Each structure stands twice: as C-alpha cells, then as structure tokens.
C-alpha cells in the first residue's frame, strides 16, 4: 500500500468521502508526523535478519530423528533499524495513558509508575527460572509472600491465591474453590446467580466451571434487587457473583445482608474485585462477608495494560474456602526460609486444594510492579487513591448531569466511575458517535454500551492520577460533543476525522475474516 506514484504528480486535493478537504494529497500517504506503515510481511525478507548468528554448517550431524525442516517457515526478518522504525511508526497510531486522559470505565486506566518498570527489570527478578532451586530464589518467594500479606491486610481476608493470570482467571479460581468446597461436603449445586449488570466474564466463568447461570434483576436505583435475590436463593444455589462497587458505579449498600442470606442457604459469595480501586485502603471486603474476590493488579495496582495484557488476578479467600485454594503457594518455614508448596506436599498441607491452574507461580513480573506500587503509596497513599478516584468521578458526574442523562444520579454518590446514558440525542446519533467525536478532541472514549442495563451506556472512570485541569478540559470537551449530539450535528456520524483511520468496517471484517497475511495472488 502507499506505493509512491511513479507516474509523476499533479497538484490535487484529497477528497474524503464526506467531501471535506484535508489539504494537498501526498504521494506517500503520510501526513507529516502521522505516518503510514506497511505490514511487516510487505517490507521484510526471508534472508534479512536483525541478529548476527553463525551461518548454518550443513555438514554437522544433527540428532533430530529425521524431522529436520525441509520447507521454509514463511517468516520474514528486518534489520534493527527497520525494526525499531516499523514498531515506532505503529506505536504512533496508538492512544495510551501516557498521551492523555483515558477514562475507560471498569478498566482503571491509571498512570503506570516507571519505578515499577525499572524494578521489574532487575536481573534478580527478570532473569530467574521458575524451577530454579528454591535456595537460589528466596528473594522472589519473599516478594510473593510480601505481596500476599499486603493483599490480605488490605482486604481483611485470611487467605490468598497468587497464581491466577488475570481477572477472569481469578474468577475461575474463586468459583472452582467454591465448587470444590461444595463437592467436599457432598453438596452438589447447579446454579450461580449473576446480576444483569455483571461483566461478561462473570457468567462466562460460571458456565466454564460447569454451572448454570441465573440473572438477578437490578432495582431502578441501579443496585442488586435484594428481595428478588433472596426469593431466588435455595439449596441449588452454589454462589452469587457480585461486583462491588458495582458496574453502575454504585456501592452495594446491602452487600452484607445479601452475604448473610447466601451463607444462610449454604452458598458462597464471590465478589468481583475489578472495582477495588474505589475502596482500596478505605473498605475491607472481608468486613462485608465476601468468601472470594479477585484483585486485578493491572487495575488497582497500576501494572500496565500493555494493549490487552498481561494482567494478574490474585484471589483472596475466607476461612471457609482457604483449604480449597490452588497450588502452588509460598509458605515461610520456622527458620524464615521461604518454600514453594507444590503437588508433592499437597497431602500434609492443603489436602483439599482443587489443584493447579497454571504451569508456574503466577505473574511474577506483575507482582514486583504491584509491590513497588504498594510500598510507594503505603496505607495512607492507598486510602488517598480511593478517595481521589471517587472524588474525580463524582466531580464529573455532577458537572455533566445537567446535560447528559445520568440514570442513577439520584442513587447517592457514585464510587470511582460515573455512568451516563444516550437519552435525547438528536437525529439518529448514538453513544458511538459521541465516543468517536471525543477521539477527535484528543481523548480515549469512556467505556460504551456497558453495563447492559443502561441504554447507550457511557461509563466514565477518571482514576486518581488525573489533575483537575485535565478533568476540567475533558468535561468541557465532553460537554461540547454532547451539545452536538443533542443538536443532532450530523458531522458527528463521520467522526473521527483526525485519527489514523476513519471508522472501520467491522461487519465486513467478520463476514469474510482475514486473520493472517497471505502473499498477494498477483505476485
């Protein structure tokens, strides 16, 4: 693509579909610092490489059982200069927290401190093998132990499983422990109750673990309908999965009541801790009757999202579920030596563990970052984190409720995110159009169309790492785009105008999926 036009150039204006002039056309397709970049496979070569290794000596005898490769793999290489440039140019087509405000509700896009990155790269952490003799990795085991202590203390829960690799994996960990607990007492249960407002991973996890999923309705004020829930409780209910603060941005006032009711009928309470950032250092879920809760270190504890991962989702447990937690885990022996408890010692230790859910001991690289973050903030700093996150969200909610439909504005203060709906937009403008309009304004849009309980939902999570100036500018921009939406400004349907790409055709992508590159026929 962007083949330079060899045929010589005629002055002419680029015409975009909607007839808006965007300046003289360029032969490269570049626009100054907004640079187009071909696919790796269009610029790389099979014989090009960015590493210097000895040429293969065909004469040496191999011991590969006659399975030596005969066909080419089909990979291409680039030299280092080309590689650095390829990925630098690609990176510039991305938005990130480092660039600007990223109020993606439910995802807690807070600043990623650079000290965390530096610490995670210390060879003593980055360059050690998961199966190294334990005497040679005592410091690593101690990191896991210290982080576990922080998590237990912050949540007021007695146990924690460190190995889950992300939030959804943590949910699985919690649900499996619950299932193991019921199985252990010969009490087979079929159903897990999940509010309609729940994140998709909740029902998916319950189903993945072999449960049927029943929905719990919400009250008009955006919280779990306690009466409806109680009505549904019974001996078939293994657990309820509730997010608190919930995905409407509200604190579940009656959580404790719900928990008691669930325990009443022999069920367990799973809390989705994705929104822990709203209460960290201020509220301990353990005080609310939670049996299991995952904590997204990549949200509350600032480990980078990296364009989709990796994450880390340790799960804290109540006394009741602790015995069923997975392997491996770290234990401190009498002499203060740290020991990794694996299958071997399962008998003497956690006879009832449901087993291993990943090959090694969890996301060590995230542990070092999260521990660095916790030590930096301390108990006082973390409390301030929650308070500033909640303050920022309420500030946004109250600054925009006059112009934007805020379905739960009267349900009391919101927690760390403000939820809006698309009521009264002019023409056929939708939440999506508003979101795309915000892109042109230099923002990453909020989460849209989630939670499902609000029409055209817009979930705004500012986090605590934004300045007031930044939030004020966002509010002004959000306001202006909203005014356009209410006024039915059709130009919004074409937004974004200034991003590396205009709107992309997702339907076409799904109809004839092209998921890998292939050599063009005509070559």
């Amino acid at each position, binding site marked *: 693509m962007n083949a330079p036009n060899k045929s010589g150039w005629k002055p002419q204006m680029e015409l975009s579909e909607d007839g808006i002039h965007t300046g003289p056309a360029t032969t490269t397709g570049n626009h100054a610092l907004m640079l187009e970049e071909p696919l790796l496979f269009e610029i790389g070569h099979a014989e090009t490489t960015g590493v210097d290794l000895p040429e293969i000596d065909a004469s040496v005898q191999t011991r590969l059982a006659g399975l030596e490769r005969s066909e080419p793999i089909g990979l291409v290489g680039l030299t280092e200069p080309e590689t650095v440039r390829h990925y630098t140019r690609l990176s510039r087509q991305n938005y990130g927290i480092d660039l600007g405000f990223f109020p993606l509700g439910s995802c807690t896009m807070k600043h990623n401190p650079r000290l965390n990155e530096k610490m995670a790269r210390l060879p*003593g952490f980055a*360059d050690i093998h998961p199966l190294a003799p334990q005497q040679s990795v005592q410091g690593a085991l101690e990191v896991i132990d210290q982080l576990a202590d922080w998590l237990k203390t912050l949540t007021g829960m007695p146990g924690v499983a460190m190995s889950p690799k992300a939030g959804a994996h943590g949910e699985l960990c919690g649900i499996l422990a619950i299932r193991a607990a019921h199985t252990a007492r010969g009490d087979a249960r079929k159903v897990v109750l999940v509010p309609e407002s729940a994140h998709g991973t909740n029902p998916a996890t319950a189903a993945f673990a072999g449960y049927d999923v029943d929905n719990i309705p919400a009250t008009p004020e955006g919280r779990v309908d306690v009466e409806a829930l109680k009505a549904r409780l019974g001996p078939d209910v293994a657990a309820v999965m509730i997010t608190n603060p919930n995905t409407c941005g509200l604190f579940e006032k009656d959580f404790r009541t719900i928990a008691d009711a669930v325990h009443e009928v022999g069920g367990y309470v799973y809390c989705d801790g994705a929104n822990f950032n709203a209460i960290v250092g201020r509220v301990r879920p353990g005080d609310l009757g939670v049996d299991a809760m995952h904590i997204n270190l990549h949200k509350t504890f600032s480990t980078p999202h990296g364009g989709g991962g990796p994450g880390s989702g340790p799960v804290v447990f109540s006394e009741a579920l602790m015995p069923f937690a997975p392997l491996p885990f770290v234990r401190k022996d009498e002499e203060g030596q740290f020991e990794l408890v694996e299958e071997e010692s399962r008998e003497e230790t956690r006879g009832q563990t449901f087993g291993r859910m990943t090959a090694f001991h969890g996301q060590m690289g995230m542990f070092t970052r999260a521990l660095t973050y916790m030590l930096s903030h301390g108990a006082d700093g973390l409390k301030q984190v929650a308070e500033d996150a909640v303050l920022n969200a309420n500030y946004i909610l109250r600054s925009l409720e006059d112009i934007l439909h805020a379905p739960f504005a009267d349900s009391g203060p919101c927690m760390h995110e403000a939820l809006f709906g698309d009521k009264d937009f002019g023409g056929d403008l939708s939440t999506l159009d508003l979101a795309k309009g915000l892109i042109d304004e230099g923002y990453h849009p909020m989460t849209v169309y989630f939670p499902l309980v609000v029409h055209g939902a817009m979930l705004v999570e500012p986090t605590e790492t934004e300045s*007031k100036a930044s939030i004020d500018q966002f509010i002004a921009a959000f306001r202006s785009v909203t005014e356009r939406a209410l006024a039915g400004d059709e130009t919004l349907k074409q937004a974004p105008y200034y991003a590396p790409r205009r709107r992309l055709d997702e339907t076409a992508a799904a109809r004839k999926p092209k998921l890998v590159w292939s050599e063009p026929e005509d070559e």
Partner: protein
Amino acid sequence: MRYLPLTDTDRADMLELIGASSIDDLFVDVPEVARLDGPIRDLPMHASEMAVERHMKGLASKNLAAGDAPFFLGAGAYRHHIPASVDTVIQRGEFLTAYTPYQPEIAQGTLQMLFEFQTQVARLYGCAVANASLYDGSTACWEAVAMAGRVTKRKRAVLSGALHPHYAQVVKTMAQFTGDTIADAQPAIQTEPDLEGLISRIDEETACVVVQYPDILGRVSDLSKVAEAAHAKGALLVAVNTEPVALGAIQSPGELGADIVVGEGQAIGVGLQFGGPYLGLFAVRNPKHVRQMPGRLCGETTDAEGRRGFVLTLSTREQHIRREKATSNICTNSGLCALAFSVHMTLLGEKGLRELAAENHRLACLAADRLEKVPGVKLLNNAFFNEFTLMLDGKPARDIVRELADRGVLGGVSLGRLYPGVEALEHALLVTVTELTTEEDIETLATELEGVLS
C-alpha cells in the same frame, strides 16, 4: 504523593461543586460494619522512590540471576538472548499504556502488530490461523482440550505421558469440573517415546490426543503417526510446544498433521521472569475451526475512506458479547508479551530463527557428548533439540541439583521436582543448552557434576 495530582485546594473546590462537606460524604453507602477510622493498620506509610528502590533491590539481591551462573534449566521455560531493541519497543508508552484495542481508529498500532503476530504464529506452527494470545502454554493447553470437545462433541481427552506434568495438572484441574475424562500417564524412561502405547489409548469417545513436541524429556518424534491414528477415530490431534526455537530446526506440528497447535511463546522475546507473565500461543490448521477458537482475533478490514485497517473481530465467540455461551471466559490476555515475541521474531526472521535453532542444537550436542563422559551419567535421548535427559547414578537428581546450586551452578531440572514421589523418575535430570551457554559453562557443569556424583 508523587502519583496524585490533586492538590488540597483542588479537593476542596471539587467537594464544593459536588455539594459534599467532606470526602466521607461520598462513602455514605458503605455500611457501618465496614467503615475504618483511618489508614489500614499494620501497613507502612508512603515511601520515596529512593527508599522503595532500596527495598526492592534488597529482595532482588537474594536471588541468583541466571546470567550470574552457568545455567542449564528449561522444562517449559527457556533462556535466550533478547536483543536490546525489544525492550525499547515494548517500553513505548503508546504500547505499554494502551488498553485492549476496542477503539480501532486510535489503536491501529496494537491491531496491526497483532495481525502480524497472528501470521507469525500461524506460520511457525504450520497452521491456518492463530489467535491474539492466551495467558500461557498450560492454559492454552486446556483451552485446546475444551475446544476439541466443542468440535467433536466428545468429552474424553488422551494425554501423552510425555506432556509437561504441570500442563497435565492444569487440564485435570479443569476437567474435574467440566466432567471431561482425562486419560493420562507418566513418561516411561526410554530412548523413544511410547507412541504405540499412546495410540492404543485412542478410542471412539476420544475428543483429542495431546502430545508435546519436543516432549518433556527433550525427545523429538514424528507426530504424523499419532495424527493418522487420531483422525482415524475421529479425534483431533492437539500438539503442545514449549520451545518455539525448536521449530526453526524441525518440522512444524501443523505440517505433521496436528489439528490444534498450542504452546508457550516465552522463549522468544519474553524472558524467564520466574514463570510469568508468559505467552499462550493458540493456532488451528483448519480455518473452519476458527469460530470455535478461544480468545481475541484481529482481522483486516477497510475504513470509511477505503484505507486498509484492522479490528478485533468474531467477538461473538467472546464473553463480553456471548456471556455464558462464550467459547472461553478469557478477557485480558498477554498483549505486551505478544508484542515482545513479535518484535524478537521480526529481528530473527526466517534466517535468524533457523540459525538460532542450529546454534542451540549444535551446543546441545556438544554438551550431551561431554556430560555423557562424566562417570555415573547416562544420556537417555537418541534425538533431542536443545534439551536432553541424563540418568544419574546414586543420589536422587533433586539432591544433586541442590548440591550443584551450592557450588554456584544451576545444573538443570530434576524430574523429581516435576513428578514428586515418582521413584522411576527420581534419577533423571533434564539439561537445557541454548546459544547463551558457553563451552566453559558446559565444562564447569561437567566438572561439578563429577564432583557431586563421586
């Protein structure tokens, strides 16, 4: 607080606009029982960057870094040289601090990278399509078993005895709950893997056979036989690879007939990191199976001006759309590790990967020959790539590994560590050699091993 931009004046002004008299007003919905009167006790207060750095460096210094000792560990996690430019790229804020590309117009960087990554993985595995990554090799292995169940509508999985025991554990953990039946075995200590035995366990209820290639003892063997047998019974062959570098030297599982190929991508670009974050690779040979795949997929499309662009696609398989009917519950995956893998793979290219594999194999052969000469040591493998099994006389290998560590040598992984309590495997030591291993390292291991054994 260096990470908190709000000033006290800001806080006061904002509370006023909100109409709250104090921050506590915003937490009124928290029930009495759960209110705290101040910062949580038993935790330190905030600390300076300098102080935190001292603390963390103190902990790091209690570990023996692989780079500071002769190092021969593998068994699912491999140490290779990572070019400096890989870290330069993954530290770009635009990659590091981006989220899952849900707004494609401002996420083309991540999306095009994923499209390139998917292509690299598919080609490496000899498959038609690969996804945008899963957590790690072991969870990818379970996802493959689960997918095979969906495709074949059967609930029985046959695991090779030479599958990484941790991977087998993960599969069995999940199966306890899904009701799948898992037929597994332990590796027999023999020169060649027992493919016949494995094939004999395949029946009409079998959804898939899971084979590791190269296997947990470092052995390399022809999967095509197993593929034929499986297909004959209407089962799928799931091939697991934990050392992608090997595929620079040997034929890909796809070429040998595997239907689903999964593996651990950590060896390329990601590093050891004590076990995580790692990179789950997942690919299928038959494009028809795409809609049964777990995880995210990036696809090509065009924008409103007709320019090529990329988006996440086929999300109707995924939890955020399909909820309880999703093919998997995975959401966050290993995006940044996929980037590191893709950058390193781009630097290697066809030529570099093949040369890297050849160099690994050359040094491994060298090491095998040298170590075999140590009295009391026998080499099990006929064939291997960069990892082989030694049978040691006398003490259990696990003790020997510890004694070697006392002598400052990280000498390998004992099967005793991987299969606690299994006597037959007690004396087996798994030794891995990569391009980072020097001939001096090999000599040191030989000498110290001799010292420990005698």
